[in-house]
């Protein structure tokens, strides 16, 4: 993927006032126009998901550190995790901290980890929450979450932000319930995005697991067809950007959190995730920087 194309698109988004640069790659403010597109797309997701009867849960963009530690995220993605540290010293330590800051030295050694970790994917707080409720009802559960997520992967590509929003529907239940949910969203997700007039392709995918062990996890994930992505070209036609993902976790989270179905079996889980900024960027890329000029059919879908 050419970094020139990425920076050119980023610069154009900034020039049109849609993204507000903050001096760190992958960290941006957004304009009212950008946010309006995100909000309309969010409402469109709700419309397409309304028959699932999902329970809405909104969490802050952070996890309980104990839950994060138990999630095995550090096994798979240590390079992406973001933990929150704070100063916990006394007044003398404070003076040392200020002195280091003044001298341009590393002051961060004075920071200690808090009980809070940044959310890496919107569904992470769902599993311990559902587990704490006990055995699943017969029909399992569907949960609707929406959160800002953090992944430490600074990039010139405006479609790879470090802090971005992810809307998700999470299905927890028997393998059949979970597989039929994913199958249904693979179809619905494609139709939904096609209604927005952007070119879409669905492909088998894998997560960016870390290291050699990660290459094995990625190969396993592909062999078993656990992850699919809906791709839209944004800064490259050859390497289109994943804007939606459809993930089957098998009993990974069921096992970690001991979530049981009504029959006492380990619960399986799946989720469909929508990358909100990425979808907005795809729309700006294909329909132009001013939504007022977008095709009438697309405007009708988003703004009614």
């Amino acid at each position, binding site marked *: 993927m050419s970094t020139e194309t990425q920076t050119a698109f980023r610069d154009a988004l900034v020039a049109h006032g849609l993204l507000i640069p903050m001096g760190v790659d992958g960290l941006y403010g957004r304009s009212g126009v950008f946010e309006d597109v995100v909000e309309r797309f969010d409402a469109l997701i709700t419309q397409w998901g309304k028959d699932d009867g999902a329970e809405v849960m909104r969490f802050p963009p952070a996890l309980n550190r104990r839950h994060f530690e138990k999630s095995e995220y550090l096994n*798979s993605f240590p390079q992406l995790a973001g933990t929150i540290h704070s100063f916990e010293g006394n007044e003398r330590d404070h003076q040392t901290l200020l002195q280091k800051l003044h001298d341009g030295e590393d002051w961060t050694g004075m920071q200690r980890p808090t009980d809070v970790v940044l959310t890496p994917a919107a569904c992470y707080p769902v599993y311990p929450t559902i587990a704490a409720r006990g055995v699943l009802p017969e029909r399992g559960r569907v949960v609707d979450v929406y959160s800002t997520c953090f992944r430490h992967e600074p990039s010139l590509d405006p479609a790879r932000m470090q802090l971005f929003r992810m809307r998700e529907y999470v299905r927890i239940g028997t393998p059949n319930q979970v597989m039929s949910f994913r199958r249904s969203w693979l179809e619905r997700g494609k139709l939904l995005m096609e209604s927005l007039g952007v070119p879409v392709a669905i492909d088998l995918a894998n997560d960016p697991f870390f290291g*050699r*062990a990660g290459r*094995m*996890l990625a*190969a*396993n994930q592909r*062999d*078993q067809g656990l992850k699919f992505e809906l791709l839209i070209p944004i800064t490259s036609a050859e390497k289109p950007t994943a804007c939606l993902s459809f993930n089957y976790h098998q009993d*990974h989270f069921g096992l970690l959190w001991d979530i049981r179905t009504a029959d006492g079996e380990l619960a399986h889980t799946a989720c469909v995730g929508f990358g909100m900024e990425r979808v907005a960027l795809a729309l700006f890329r294909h329909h132009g920087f001013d939504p007022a000029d977008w095709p009438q059919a697309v405007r009708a879908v988003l703004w009614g």
Partner: protein
Amino acid sequence: MRATAWTALGDETAEDVASMDTTIREILADSGWLAVDVAALSDGDDLYAAGLTSHGSVNLMLALEERFDIEFPEQLLRRRTFESIAAIREAVTGLRNGTAGA
């Protein structure tokens, strides 16, 4: 395909095979990655069906590398390399004989 690869290697004695099986079974028994007793498994039984998870299979791979002083090449870092005791034995034997991925 597996049987062909196995017989083609040739220079392992029956004792080597037995000792390797014992070591593989020891690693599995000590690990706690399986939901069943290793002694109850035959060489061809599916370890994933016996409770081996994806993360478990990664740890198994690392434990095999350490115990047999080998390194699995990229093309063997797959689920089916570790799907049974027989499959593991074949992969480890191949690596020790320099016929990895054959």
